[in-house]
Each structure stands twice: as C-alpha cells, then as structure tokens.
C-alpha cells in the first residue's frame, strides 16, 4: 500500500534529466517533454521539427525510462531503438533519466561563408573523375570530411550552377587557401560538361562552405572506412588528417570501384599507409573487372568484405565511416547491422531521405 502510495506521489513529482557528456542536470515537469524542459532551461539541445519526424533531437538513453508520445520507430531505425536511442521531443519521463548527446562531443564547425575560388589546375584522376584545384581569396577553415558548394559564375545572367563537393585533402592549421575537389563527369550535364569541355584553369568560381558533419570522432576504437566512386574524397581527407595526427587506431579502408580504370589515389593511399604508425589497410575491390585481366586484387562487392576476417578486427567494437552511392551505403548498413556494429558508431549523413523508406519515386 505504501509502495502504491509512493508511486502515486512520485507521479506528480518533477523528474531530473542529466545530459552527458558534461553532466548538466535539469528538472523536467511531469507535463513537459524532455526537449521542452531542456528548452525551458535554455539548454542547447539539437532540434528541428519538435514533433518527432526529423530525428534531430535523437539522443541515447543511458539510464531511466521514457514514454514515447509518438512511436520512435517512425523516425529511428530498429537498430537505433535497440541501441537505446530516443527522440527527446517525444519523450515523457517515467523517472529520472541520463541521456547522452553525441553532438556535445563533436567539434564546433565553422559557419559557412562565401569565397572566390580561382581554378589553378585540373587533372584527370580516372577516365571520368577530375581533380580540380582552386585558390581562395582568403583561407577557409574546415574539418576533414566536410564539403563545399561550388558555383560556376561565367557571366551569363541567371547562370548560377552549383554542386556540392567534399574537400579532398586534410585542412591546414589556420585554414587553407589551396583546395582540391574530385569531380565526376556526368554526361549530358551542363555543369560538368562545362568543366570537362576544355582546360578551365584561370576561371573563377564561387565557393560556399564548409558544410556537413561527416568527420572523424575522437575515440580509441578501430576504424573501418567504406567508400565508392568519388566518395574517396572525404575519406582521403579524413585519413590524411588522422595520419598527420599520428593516429593510434587500426584503420581498414574498403574502396569499391567497377574496374581498374575507375581506381585512383592508389599511390596516395600507399604513402598514407606508410605514414601511419599503426596499420592502415587499403583494400580496393572491383565489381566489374573482366575475368582473366591483369587485376590480382579483390573482386566482388564491397559488402562481401565487411567481415572480421577481411578487415582484420572485430567489427562490434569498431567505428565506421561511409561515403558513396546510397545503394552501396544501404547495403553496407545492413551488413554492419548484422555484424552488430552499434549505430552510434556508424557515420554518414544523417538525412537519409528516400533510403529510409523503400519507396519508388
């Protein structure tokens, strides 16, 4: 009876929520969601829609229990839910809770700005990927893994063509004025046709950046990178930076391409491997290389190599970074899930769009 009475009494008492890392604590009145209470207290909590549809307020429940106002599974994946993720905007507390906010441990990123970029050189990396090097009007500070928007300003009125490309090199301390990007030719597309049509050295572009939150998270765990096509660029930048920081974590990098003519940056990767104090294994995998060709490396799909034997470490404890065509990412995510890689250790852009639902467009 006393127990029941206590339970009843406790129902009306405010709960306490604690946010990690940092240990900030605040009271959550019984009729407020976790996010509302955090906002009430002026606590900086990531959010966007506030109605349980965008996933921005995702956090990990470390202790305690919550009652969802709207089923989390509309927005979170099954793996995320089983790993203890909740949506703060849809959570009523059943008692005191401790939640972890990943973004608190992340680096603060520079706000994006506009720059003028002069093309200093261009060069073919493969038959359809070009490296474009530019010089900016002033140094830009970014984090390896981020991207920028490039606008072609060729003087024609209304001709504002832009595409987003990842920085393909690690940034320099204090900002970089010399940048390079990997740009894949899309046949029939006016933007890349313009670039590929003739030598554009000396032309001026407009650059807007940095953008994105794809970067290496601090930890000791082994790293598995998976990239395909021009997804090479951000991974290369991340690994260059990691190597420069004398990273002590084992790294395996699976790079998927169609055939030998689609491979690039092989020398750079070898140089990086040498530079790394620990093991950096770079494994190119070709999916459409003709049988009997001179290729002696791995064949098949990248996903076939996501296993402990191929990567050389236990997948459960590793951190993964993926960049490439969504089909590849989706397939890789599935394999990672089967291998019980915790979702909070899988990094790619959080906004999945069509990939969240198998919907024909």
């Amino acid at each position, binding site marked *: 009876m006393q127990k029941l009475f206590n339970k009843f009494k406790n129902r009306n008492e405010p709960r306490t929520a604690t946010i990690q890392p940092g240990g900030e604590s605040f009271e959550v009145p019984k009729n407020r969601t976790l996010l509302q209470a955090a906002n009430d207290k002026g606590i900086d909590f990531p959010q966007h*829609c*506030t*109605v*349980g*549809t*965008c996933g921005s307020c995702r956090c990990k429940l470390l202790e305690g229990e919550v009652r969802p*106002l*709207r*089923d989390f*599974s*509309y*927005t979170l*994946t*099954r793996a995320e*839910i089983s790993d203890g993720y909740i949506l703060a*905007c*849809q959570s009523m507390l059943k008692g005191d809770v401790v939640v972890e906010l990943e973004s608190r441990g992340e680096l603060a990123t520079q706000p994006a700005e506009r720059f003028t970029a002069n093309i200093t050189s261009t060069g073919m990396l493969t038959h359809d990927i070009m490296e474009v090097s530019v010089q900016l009007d002033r140094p830009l500070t970014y984090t390896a893994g981020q*991207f920028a*928007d490039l606008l072609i300003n060729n003087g*024609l*009125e*209304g*001709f*504002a*063509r*832009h*595409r*987003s*490309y*990842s920085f393909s090199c690690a940034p320099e301390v204090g900002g970089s004025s010399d940048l390079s990007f990997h*740009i*894949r030719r*899309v046949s*029939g*597309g*006016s*933007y*890349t046709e313009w670039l590929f049509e003739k030598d554009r050295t000396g032309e001026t572009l407009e650059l807007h950046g940095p*953008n*994105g939150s794809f970067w290496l998270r601090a930890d000791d765990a082994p790293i598995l990178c998976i990239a395909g*096509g*021009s*997804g090479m660029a*951000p991974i290369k930048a991340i690994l260059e930076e990691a190597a420069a920081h004398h990273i002590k974590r084992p790294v395996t990098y699976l790079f998927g391409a169609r055939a030998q003519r689609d491979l690039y940056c092989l020398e750079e990767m070898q140089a990086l491997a040498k530079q790394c104090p620990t093991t950096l294994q770079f494994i190119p995998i070709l999916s459409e290389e003709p049988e009997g060709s001179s290729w002696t490396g791995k064949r098949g799909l990248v996903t076939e190599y996501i296993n402990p034997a191929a990567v050389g470490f236990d997948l459960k404890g590793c951190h993964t970074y993926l*960049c490439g*065509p*969504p*089909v590849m*990412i989706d397939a890789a995510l599935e394999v990672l899930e089967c291998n019980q890689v915790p979702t909070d250790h899988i990094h*790619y*852009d959080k*906004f*999945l*769009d*069509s*990939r969240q*639902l*198998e*919907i024909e*467009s």
Partner: protein
Amino acid sequence: MSSAIAGNSGPLSFVARVTTLPHLTFAILPVVGYLLGGGIYHWITVFVLLALMFIDPIIGTDDTNHDEADEGALQEKLFYRMMLWVTLPASVAVTIFGHWLLTQTSLTTSETIGFLLSLTLATGFLATTAHELCHHTQPVDRLIGDLVFTPIFMCDFHIYHNFMHHIHAATPIDPGTARYGEKIYPFLINSIVRKTRMAWQIEKKRMADNGKPTWHPSNLMIRFIVLQAAWLGLLVALFGLWSIPICFVQYLFPRLLLAVGDYLEHYGLGRKQLPDGSYEKIRPNHAWDDSTLVSSMLFCQIDRHSDHHTNVGRPYQILRVMDEAPRLPQGYLTMIPIAFIPSLWRKQMHPVVEAYYDKGEVIPYAMPDALPEKYAAMVPEGWGQTLPD
C-alpha cells in the same frame, strides 16, 4: 530557428484571433439553410464561399506577425487548442444532420445538389483544422484530429503528411510537391493515390521494424480503416445505403482541396542535393507563402506555409509570414480555381516562379523540357536522382 520575418510586428494577426470560427460557421451554415426553409438556402455555403472568393482579393493581406515576446504565452494558451477541439463535435453533428436530411427528407434535385455541396464544404474545410491537430505533440490532440478526419475518410493523411510530406517536400520523393509545368489533373490523381499508398508503406515498414506483422492492431492504418468503416456502418445503419454515395462525395472533396493546396504550396520549388544524394534541410524558400486575409481564415493560417514547414512544431496561431519565402500572386481562394485552368495558371504563376528562380535560392523543380533554357541551366545535372556524382 533564426529567420527574417516580414510583415508588421503586432499583437496578433486577425486570422489568429478568429481561430476556427470560420470553420465552425461553415459547419453551421447547412443547418441555417435548412432553418431558413431550404430551397435556394440549401446552397447557402456555396454562395458564402463564392462571396468570400470575390472579396478575398479586395480585402487583401494581413501580414501581421505577433510580437516575438508573446510567443511562448501564445503557444501554450489552451484557448487555441480548445477552438480546434470543438471542430470535432461540429463535424460529427453536421455530417449526421446532413445524412439525415439527404436520406430521410424529400429534397428536389437542386436542393440535393446545393445541400450536398454545402455539407461537403463544411466538412472539407474542417480538414484544415484536423491537419493542424495532427501536428500537435499532445496525443489527445492528434486523436481528435483523427476523429475530425473520420467523417471525410482522410485519416491516412495524418501519416503521409507527417512522415512523408514534411520530410520530403520540395524533392521528387514527395508526391505532394508539384513540378513547374505540371498539369493539375494528372497531379491530383497521382498525388491522391500515392499519398494513401505511402501511408500504407510507412505503417508497413514500422510494423516490420517493430517485428510485427502488417496486419496488427497497432498498425495505425488498420485502426483508421476500422474507425472509418465503423463510422460508415453507423451512418448506413441510421440512414440506409444512400449514405454511401454521400460519404464518397465527402471523401473526395477534401482530398481534392488539400491536393490542390499541395499543388500551390511548393510549385516548382526544389531543395539542393548534398553529395551523398540526400537533400538539404527545408528552408522558408521551399514553400509559397500567402497571407491574404480571407483565404487565411478558411485555411487556418496554413497558407503561411514556409513557416509551417520550417518550424513544424509551431501551432497555427503563431505562424509567421517569412521574408525569404516566395509569395503567391493571389490568395488561396483565387489561386485554387486558377489552378484548374492550366493556361491561366501558367500566365499567373510562371512569371512569379521564374522571378523567384532568378534569386538563385532554390533548384527549379520542373517537368522534363518545361523550363526555359536559362532556368534549365540552374538544375544541377543528376538532380533528383538518389545517386550522387
């Protein structure tokens, strides 16, 4: 969310002050027509709507944005929620009254048509209050929203709208976003069919994610079907089989209304694609704004659409007119009929859309070959495909 706010800062827009009174009035009008003796009075709602359409451009816009200091208090005020709640008894009562009148009394053909239209308009415009409720955080509000959707058989909208439209608007994934040059009629059919299908897919996927079979009582679509079937069953039990075609008209009109609304709201606007093939976050630039007073009143301020999309959690009373948002040339009540005449629509809308494209804030989202060369050049190659470069 920091956003430049257009309009005058004032206590509250007129529309926010009248809250759902216009909807409640529409719900009462069919009864008023009957009490006035029927006949031509059964057309009362149609006449009122025509009059409103006529005065809408004359009255003009009300760009008042509430004082930001009042926002917290306005947002929490129970009054605004209660004004939404009372639309539930209104929609149930007018539907029952309507079915009774249409099936149990003898009306002339003209009376039947007039009254049926009045009834349909009454419950149809209530879809906008149900829409508002389906966005609320409080489960009780969402439940009431579903119940307001029930007499018009539109519960599935709740799922599609929250988990598809609000996430994917202004991208090719969303069937509720119209392309520049897209004709209204195929758009309506396609969007109506695909929205329901998507609601199914979303629930099906959620069931699978939760390790449950599709046909499970926690599948909201199944609950909605049961709820709507029970409602239909009740009407048939009370008023006989003629209730079925009446329900069908009640079903169709609000769908068309909201689908035309969709057609206007994002016409031709596309979001930028990021390197991984996903789309940038939705910004006020990705929805057409309108603050024409009369239109706004009938649509529960949903025509302040850019704020609604950028800040989904904002209730209707504090939606703002946004500086960066593109503006429709006329109010909803004018643009909706215009949308049905493609040549007129193009004449009214295309210059405005193109002028907005010139600002370079959005990707032109268009039918193949519909764009003038200059704007076609603004579409990044491969835009709209999930594969990145």
